[in-house]
């Protein structure tokens, strides 16, 4: 499994959807500030959402599924920075002009064609993250491209949308999901690329480039959670899998790599099942109640289930023996995938299967009994679930459904990425985007006059910046390159201008070398903010400290973020 993948041969196609929060004065459809808060909310209210019907009286299956969970949504709010628009207690105001301007700026930077009139739509979302039950979204521009700086390759931009961010999930339990409304309504730009990306590395490079272009406007938010990427990944004979909500750039290549592995392995699994002569008619939805047979079982989960009046149900998966342990991604087996479906659809914690037994207090004898009761031969595998009967039934129905799909390869679904780069089942693929017009917001024309104005004030592109950093600031090639990609690019320029006596190379080196060495030494550099750097270079400019003292002072400030450079000088005896 460790062998490296030939992406060209596999026909890898990747498209990115990048969501970037804008740093505007007010939210997209109201006058509230775009701030997140950690203090105690002063308002809480509860709601339910109901799916709406199509013209044939049909309800979108994904929407109905959410509804049938009968979850109650609890919303936390603040009286001063959140208003009735976020509460869904007041109609939205007009589309925020500043947000539209930024979106149009980005559109022009990406060579896309702005629409002549913006129409706000409602995209149905009933997981509770939008109090209205829909996300307001609008298309701003179509058909652009970006150029990758190193290779010169062009990556198509299909659409650029302006939409509202969802509420933040704070917690979730069996009955309720709690959201905070501070984030709801913050303007987001969504940029969708064409599936022109063909390697995991390229995916990261494209994300980085788009991030750079966005930052060059200086009007986007920065920091964790302000930029999120969804990645669409497919290989030949596989399926388009959308992996949602990747917050870190470094994860992108790993996620793509692991998802490709998963799809390759699912195709191998399909072939193996065919070789074993399995076909769909061999699957039977016979769920065998083995509660009595396991009443003396030592497994604590099984004991507890029986004690609380639950049941143990078993399902035979024909010809699957050994395949539930089939690895799809590092430390992620086909059995893991089945367990994820069980958790999502039934709410049970997971499942047992014969490929991993005897274990967890289930003995060899128990396994023999289970095989006997389900009529399973050595070729077959058996899946067991424990809990309330209705949940167990749903769980096994879903196991059966997923096992059947294995015969066809990769099923379409929405997945999420974990911090270790593995993709996980998230939810079924939603039906064709459920969209209808937001009639509360009138269409907004995009005039030639507006566009001319924006064209005149387009921000400097990264490559132009690079040239200026080399020529005006005299940074060397490596440092200039690092700096235009840096998170610290804006403060770097601010400081260079504020303290002309300090060499730009010193400032750039501090950000691009010193901080990295400090992080390697486990110094908590994330505690450093713009004020610390300002003070640092101010002290350097006035001769209070020497260049050589920079690492020491920064380390001190990172460990004592409430202190100042003067304290450092005193305590470190500089």
């Amino acid at each position, binding site marked *: 499994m460790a062998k490296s993948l030939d992406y060209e041969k596999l026909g890898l196609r990747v498209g990115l959807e990048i969501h970037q929060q804008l740093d505007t004065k007010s939210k997209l459809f109201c006058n509230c500030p775009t701030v997140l808060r950690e203090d105690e909310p002063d308002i809480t209210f509860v709601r339910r959402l109901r799916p709406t019907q199509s013209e044939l009286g049909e309800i979108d299956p994904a929407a109905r599924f959410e509804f049938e969970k009968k979850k109650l949504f609890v919303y936390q709010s603040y009286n001063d920075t959140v208003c009735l628009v976020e509460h869904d207690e007041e109609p939205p105001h007009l589309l925020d002009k500043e947000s539209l301007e930024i979106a149009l700026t980005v559109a022009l930077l990406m060579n896309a064609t702005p629409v002549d009139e913006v129409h706000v739509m*409602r995209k149905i979302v009933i997981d509770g993250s939008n109090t209205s039950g829909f996300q307001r979204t609008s298309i701003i521009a179509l058909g652009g491209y970006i150029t990758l700086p190193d290779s010169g390759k062009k990556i198509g931009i299909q659409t650029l949308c302006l939409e509202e961010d969802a509420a933040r999930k704070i917690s979730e339990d069996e009955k309720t999901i709690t959201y905070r409304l501070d984030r709801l309504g913050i303007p987001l730009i969504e940029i969708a690329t064409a599936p022109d990306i063909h390697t995991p590395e390229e995916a990261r490079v494209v994300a980085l480039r788009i991030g750079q272009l966005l930052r060059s406007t200086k009007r986007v938010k920065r920091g964790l959670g302000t930029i999120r990427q969804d990645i669409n990944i497919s290989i030949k004979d596989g399926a388009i899998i959308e992996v949602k909500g990747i917050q870190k750039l470094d994860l992108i290549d790993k996620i793509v790599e692991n998802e490709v592995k998963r799809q390759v392995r699912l195709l191998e699994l399909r072939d193996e099942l065919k070789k074993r002569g399995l076909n769909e008619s061999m699957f039977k939805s016979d769920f065998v109640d083995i509660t009595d047979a396991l009443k003396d079982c030592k497994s604590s989960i099984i004991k507890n289930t029986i004690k609380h009046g639950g049941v143990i149900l078993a399902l035979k998966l024909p010809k699957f023996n050994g395949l539930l342990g089939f690895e799809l991604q590092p430390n992620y087996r086909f059995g893991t995938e089945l367990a994820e479906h069980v958790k999502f659809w039934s709410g049970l914690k997971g499942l047992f299967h014969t490929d991993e037994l005897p274990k967890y207090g289930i003995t060899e004898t128990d396994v023999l009994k289970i095989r006997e009761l389900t009529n399973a031969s050595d070729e077959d595998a058996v899946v067991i679930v424990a809990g309330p009967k209705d949940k167990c039934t749903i769980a096994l129905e879903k196991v059966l459904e997923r096992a059947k799909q294995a015969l066809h390869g990769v099923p379409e679904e929405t997945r999420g990425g974990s911090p270790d780069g593995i993709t996980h089942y998230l939810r079924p693929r939603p039906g064709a985007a459920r969209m209808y017009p937001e009639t509360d917001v009138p*269409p907004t024309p995009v005039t030639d006059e507006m566009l001319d104005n924006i064209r005149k004030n387009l921000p400097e592109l990264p490559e132009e910046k690079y040239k200026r950093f080399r020529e005006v600031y005299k940074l060397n090639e490596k440092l200039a390159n690092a700096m235009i990609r840096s998170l610290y690019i804006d403060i770097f320029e601010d400081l260079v201008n504020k303290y002309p006596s300090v060499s730009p190379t010193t400032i750039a080196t501090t950000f691009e070398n010193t901080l990295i060495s400090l992080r390697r030494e486990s110094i908590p550099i994330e505690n450093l903010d713009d004020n610390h750097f300002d003070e640092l270079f101010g002290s350097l400019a006035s001769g209070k400290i020497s260049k050589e003292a920079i690492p020491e002072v920064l380390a001190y400030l990172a460990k004592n973020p409430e202190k100042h450079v003067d304290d450092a000088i005193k305590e470190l005896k500089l």
Partner: protein
Amino acid sequence: MSNKDDSNLFSGYHGLALNILQKFDAHVGDRVKIETDSKALEGILIPRAELTTTHDHVVIKLKNGYNLGVHVSKIKSISVIERGRMLRPELSEIPVSYREDAPEVSIVSTGGTIASRVDYQSGAVYPALDARDLYNVVPELGDYAKLKTRFLFNIFSENITPSHWTKLAAEIAKDIQDGVDGIVVTHGTDTMGYSSAALSFALQNLPVPVVFVGSQRSSDRPSSDAAMNLLSAVITAANAPFAHVVVVMHGTEDDKFCYCHPGTKVRKNHTSKRDAFRTINDYPIAKVENGRIIMLKKDFVPRDKKRELVLKPKFDNRVAFVKAYPGIPPEIIDLFVDKKYHGIVLEGTGLGHAPEYLNDALKRAIEEGIPVVMTSQCIWGRINMYVYRTGRQLLNLGVIPGEDMLPETAYVKLMWVLAQTRDMKEIRSMMLTNFAGEITPQTRSKEFLG
């Protein structure tokens, strides 16, 4: 060929946009390709929303569901790829289920769309109006009632007039004669309080509850308050122990419970919130929570199907409703007198006052046999015109003090009274008699801003 009605071919388009659609023979609903100087767009031609300010954009829906407008000046050509389908197909037969032994509830629709279906392809929203639609949108209804639905008007509630109240009262009387267990009236929220007051007077000696209901969020939204309001209204009509005209709406911002507000004491107090409706100068009769009715008041008229309804559905629409304010010109009063109006309700200041310089005009009105009733723009509280000299002067002129009646209720009531008598003495006596809970004997401390 399109099988649409010809008038809908260019629905909502005017001016330059209409010209270009006619030129290329492209109709609303068609799949079209629009070529501009810089791009080619394919999608379905969407109706132009009514009363948009400009007429120089053509709207299409792309395959990804997004709509956008293309400026007429940029369009080089429009080609029709496929003619449109009928935008509203027939509903397929969907089986509905309800409890056979459930009480029978009649739903009379006045145009407040309480449940809707959305066509995601065109983005159009259709009201769901027949019983089957309602059961499908809110399946829980089947546990509580057998519904029969009736479509009476299709108008915004801001366009309701007293003659609509008369028709509505007659319609409800028919249902009562048919022996239903309760009636639900779906109604727009803007004037729901006026209508509930009107029906409270028109339907005397009620045997079963009459429940007004609406929604503050349009019912095509997943977050609409319509479903919970409708369910609570049906439960009230089917099971409430009382026989009153009430308004059932959200009690708070939460989807937790609804209040049953007395029909003559309810007012819309917020432009948009779910809990905009409040009982004023009294308490809600009951609340409906988790399918149960919890009584909050003990003094109610119990439901009794044997009780004989007395229908008094007429309203005199020549009543003026005038708010007093600093600087109000007396000519406003003179105008109504000159135009031979039959009555005036004043929404005065404080305890029931109006600028002294209006006194001559008011005196003339009363002398000409036009009753003048005083209420207060404070909304909460009771009129008392004995306290200050200005008030006493008005009383001496013959102004009728409206007690703790809501100004809107007093206006509706005077119309109802005038349809029965034009005798000044009798009018005064009827205005001061409590017919339907509009006047309470005591003002309690906790009623205010409850």
